[in-house]
Structure formats: C-alpha cells, structure tokens
C-alpha cells in the first residue's frame, strides 16, 4: 500500500510517501519513496492557508519524486494551521483530490500523542522502565507535551509556546501573536537568545508542574499531577530538534536554533528526535473497513454518497453545542427489545436537531426497527440512514471519518471507516 503522510503545521509543511508492506502475520515494514517534502507553510495575507500554492507544491513533489497515487494516507493540520479558517474545506478538497487521504484537524491531545509515538519517545520510555519521560514537540505555534512511563502515554498537555511567534529584521522584532508579546515581556531583552531562554524556562518549569508564570499560555493543561515534581527525561521533537548546526535565525526566521542551544545547555537528560516528518507519516495512517449493513433503514432523499463524514460518539452528540450538518454516529445500543429500541429512537430524535443528515451505525441487528421508531411520529426531524451489523474493530483513537456509497446494482451500502491509527 502506498501511504502519504502530509503534516501542515504552523511553520512547516512536511510530506512523505511510504510503501507499507503488511505480511500475513500482520508484521509491517516501510520503505520511503523518493525524498520527503519540507517547505514553509504558505499562508495568504489574511493568515488563511494558501490553497493554490500548497496544492502546487504537493503536485510538483509527487511528479518530481515519481510517487504513485496513494491507497491510504493522512493529511494533518496541526498547531496554528488547524485554526486557519479554510483548514476544513481545504482538507476536504485535498482528500477528494487524492482519494484515500484522511483529512484531520488534530486537537492538541491528539497532536501530543502522535508526536510522542511518531518521534520514538515510546521506545525511549520502554528503554527506561519505571522512569517518567516527557516528550515535547516544539513547533512554530505550540508545544505539545506527553508524559510517558513504561511505553504508555499517561497524560498530555499543550502550551501556546512556539518558535515562530516573532519576526526579526535587523535586530527589530515584530510580534505575530499576543502570546509572543507576553513571552517577550518575561524576557530580559528582545534578542532571540533571550526569548529562547524564557521559552525553555517555561517549558521545563511546566514539565515540573510549575504554572505560575504561564499566564494564558496553557492551551490544554495536564489532567493529573502524577509525578511531575521530579525532573524527568526529556524527549524533544519538532523543528527545534532539527536545528543542530543552525547558528542564527537567518534560515528559518525563528528562534528554533536558539531554543535548541538553550536546551543543550541545560543540565538535563534530553534526547532529540530528528525524524519528525517520517515519524508522522509512519506513526499515523488511515485504516479502512468495508461494511455493508445487513439490515437498513434509509430515508427517501438520503444522499447516495458521502465523503469524509465525521464519526461521532453518543457522548459527543450530548456535549456538542453545534453538530455538523452531516455526521455518522456509532450507536451503543445493543438491545433487541422493541421498547428499548423505541425509547432510544425517541431520545435520538429529540437530541438531534431537524435538518441534520445522520448515518447511524449499529452493532446489533436493529437498523430497521430503529428507523421505524425514529420516523414513526410525524413532524420535522433529522434525515437518517441506519445500517447495522457494523463492527468498528479498530484500536485507533476517536478521531474518525467515513465514506459511504450506495451501490445500486447490488443494492448495498458500502462504508469505509477512516481513522487515525497509531502503530
């Protein structure tokens, strides 16, 4: 299988193509195709992603490196890029351009997990059994933390500290973000090395559980305080980890090289990972299952094809103030008694606003009954397609999307689940 890993971050856009071999025992091996791509993430003046340039760059890379069309792959928007207004629509465009690509805007927790797994921090943790390891992925806009022990990720966090929050021109500094200005206010001066010192101080203090100087820099806090009083082993990835030999800000225009040198100066056990681009592609991939529901309920005008529909859980339905227009829902109900199915259908009908389009996935054989009760009462309601006998056997995280196609000749609905799969 050919897999693309495209990571559009605050500062850099990285892309890699790998040939994944999976043998009958489930063992995987990877072979990188051509040279990975690494460019500055192009933005428009309005700080939107420059769709035209990104597409051109990717197409040029594919042609130049003679990379085949992908079977699977991941398109990740991370850091500031995921906050760009056009990230969702652009992701949808790219995943329709290269079918099989899963487009995902990572939340900080996912970003932390993927960075930790992809950079080799898990293996490092397995080597140092019983010792806490904190992995920090220092990017252009944010720093993502993951606490590991014995190869397991125990906790994650995220700070709004990155290397590209300032622009330096002939010793003059301009601030790209409010957070950059705040960090600068803590520094002794406005030189890159002084900013880097503060940034590293804040990062290391945060590893030790100290938050007093953070202000509003804490995007996602640690969930627990377990063992962060002692100083752990640090594992670093992101652009900073690749700054060895970079003397000034000249090449990248950010403080990455200074942060790298500052970290090196600290009296701590720090390991740098320099294969983030490759690690991202190998650490994350799509995972597809094809299903056809055994029993189906379909509202008359439900679309025959859906692409990249978000897969939500019941908890997300309960907690989300604004649900997407179209989404899929993995239903937890297992019962086959009419009363319980009816009660569940009524609950769902009340919970999901009219005008939405929902693809319900049931594990048991109840799709028709559910559809019957859902549509029994007249009045405005969401339009639904219910499929059953769908088993989502995946070890992946909760970030999933799916495609659905109605195959008219066989009268079947084909469903492809696409999820981030952490190897």
């Amino acid at each position, binding site marked *: 299988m050919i897999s693309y890993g495209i990571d559009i971050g605050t500062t850099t856009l990285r892309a890699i193509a790998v040939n994944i071999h999976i043998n009958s025992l489930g063992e995987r091996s990877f072979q990188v195709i051509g040279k990975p791509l690494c460019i500055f993430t192009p933005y428009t003046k309005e700080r939107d992603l420059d769709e035209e340039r990104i597409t051109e760059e990717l197409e040029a890379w594919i042609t130049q490196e003679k990379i085949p069309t992908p079977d699977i792959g991941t398109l990740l928007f991370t850091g500031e890029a995921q906050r760009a207004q056009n990230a969702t629509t652009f992701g949808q465009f790219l995943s329709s351009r290269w079918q099989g690509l899963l487009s995902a805007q990572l939340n900080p927790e996912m970003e932390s997990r993927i960075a930790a797994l992809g950079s080799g921090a898990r293996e490092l943790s397995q080597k140092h059994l019983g010792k806490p390891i904190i992995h920090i992925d220092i990017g252009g806009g944010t720093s993502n933390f993951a606490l590991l022990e014995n190869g397991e990720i125990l906790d994650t966090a995220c700070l709004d500290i990155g290397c590209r929050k300032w622009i330096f021109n002939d010793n003059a500094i301009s601030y790209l973000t409010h957070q950059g200005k705040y960090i600068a206010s803590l520094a002794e001066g406005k030189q890159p090395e002084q900013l880097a010192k503060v940034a590293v101080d804040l990062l290391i203090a945060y590893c030790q559980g100290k938050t007093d100087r953070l202000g509003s820099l804490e995007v996602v806090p640690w969930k627990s305080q377990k063992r962060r009083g002692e100083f752990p082993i640090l594992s670093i990835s992101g652009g900073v980890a690749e700054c060895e030999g970079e003397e000034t800000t000249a090449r990248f225009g950010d403080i990455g090289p200074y942060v790298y040198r500052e970290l090196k100066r600290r009296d701590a056990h720090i390991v740098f990972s320099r294969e983030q681009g490759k690690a991202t592609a190998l650490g994350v991939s799509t995972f597809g299952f094809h299903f*056809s*529901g*055994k*029993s*189906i*309920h379909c509202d008359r005008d439900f679309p025959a094809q859906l692409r990249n529909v978000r897969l939500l859980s019941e908890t997300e339905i309960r907690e989300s103030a604004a649900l997407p227009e179209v989404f899929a829902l993995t239903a937890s109900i297992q019962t*086959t*008694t*009419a009363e319980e*199915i009816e009660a569940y259908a009524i609950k769902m009908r009340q919970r999901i606003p009219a005008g939405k389009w929902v693809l319900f996935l049931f594990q*048991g*054989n*109840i*799709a*028709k*009954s559910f*559809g*019957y009760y859902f549509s029994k009462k007249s009045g405005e309601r969401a339009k639904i397609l219910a499929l059953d006998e769908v088993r989502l056997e995946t070890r992946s995280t909760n970030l999933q999307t799916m495609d659905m196609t109605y195959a008219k000749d066989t*009268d*079947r609905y084909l469903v492809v689940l696409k999820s981030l799969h952490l190897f």
Partner: protein
Amino acid sequence: MLVSSKNNFIEGLKQTTTARIGIGRAGFRYTTNAQLKFKEDLACARDSVRRDVPENLIQELDLLSLASRAKDRKTYLMSTSEGRFLNEESVARLSSQENSGIDVQIITSDGLSSEAFERNVPQILPILLERLKSEGLRVGPALFVRRARVALMDHVGEILKPKASIILLGERPGLGISDSLSGYFEYAPCFTRVESDRNVLSNIHGKGIPPTEAALMLAEALIKILSLKKSGMTVRFDFA
C-alpha cells in the same frame, strides 16, 4: 501467550452461539453442568412442542381463531399432511369472512413451538400490519390456526383469494433455542403452489433476527413480491 489468546478466541466464539461447543468433559462423560443444561434444554424443547397457545392471548391480539385438520398434538406430529388443511368448521368460519380485494393475508400458528408464537408474534404483528397499511395495502383478517403446517397458507389462499399470503409459525425447537419463529410468504397462494414458490425468513427470536426487525423485513419482502407479482426461487431477498 499463544494458548491464552487461543482460549480467548474460543471463548469469543462460544459467546456467538447457543450450540454446544467446547463444553468440556469429566473423564469419559459430560460434566455435570453440561448434563444438567442438556436436560433443561430438552425439557424446554418438549414444552414448546407440546404446550398450546393460551386462548386469551389469541383474543388479545384480535386474531380469528381457527384450527387445522390435526385434531390433537400427537396427530399433528405423526401425520404432517393434516396440518396443511383447515378443518371443516374453520373452512366454514373463514368462508363467511369478507374476502374481496385482499392484498395480503396474515396467518399465524403455533406450529412446532408455542413459545415462539407467544414471544414473537405479539411484537411482529402490530408493526407488520401498520407497515403494510401505510403502503395502502388491504390486509385480510389476521388468523391464528392451531397446529398448522406451512402449506396451510395455500388452503387459506383458495378461500380468501389474497394477492399474497404470509404464515408466521414456530420452528422445530433445537437444544439451544426453543422460541424461534419463521415467516413464509408467497404470491397468489393456491393448491397448485409448490415449495419453490415460497420464500422464508427464519430464525426470528431474541438471539437471532429480533422480532421488530423481522416485522419490517417481512413487510418489505411482501411489498416486493406484490410489485414483482411473483415469489419463490426466482426472487432474491438478501434481507438487507
């Protein structure tokens, strides 16, 4: 590690079926638990076959109560052809019913398991009726025929002349499931019909196809054979 995952796999498989697999042994014999479970299931199966559906349930479901020519349970079991025809009294009763322009005739029966009827028909019938009526179909008086076989739908067909007919009747109990129901359906039922003219949805019970789901599947299947004007082997149903 390998042994453990193999055991987990077998345990997982066992959860998916009521069949007697991996029940173990004690020396040359079954374990006491397996032996007791066998006796319990056999008793359930015998009860299902021998017991009659209570009359008050038939009234509750508003079914017209009829009977086949098999005058008792023993005759029904020993002489299968007797279950294929209505007795004289039932023929007279049915003939007095309004029979013009019936699209679908619903017949229910205890068949070989009264438990299957009691557990499933009360759930299936209202949904099946409602779904058929929502399509504008005229449904004949719902019948309950004691001790019926599948082909009894042809005898009813000769009297009421419906466009299609369905019979819901209890299946022969196994040692794991004693409440399984089947729904046989046929286009233009009459005495010239043969087995291959019928279709069936079987295994309707709590651990198989849930009754509410089966009701909707059967309704859609009946709508299909009415639109195709044929049933049997030439019509394919994947019940999907």
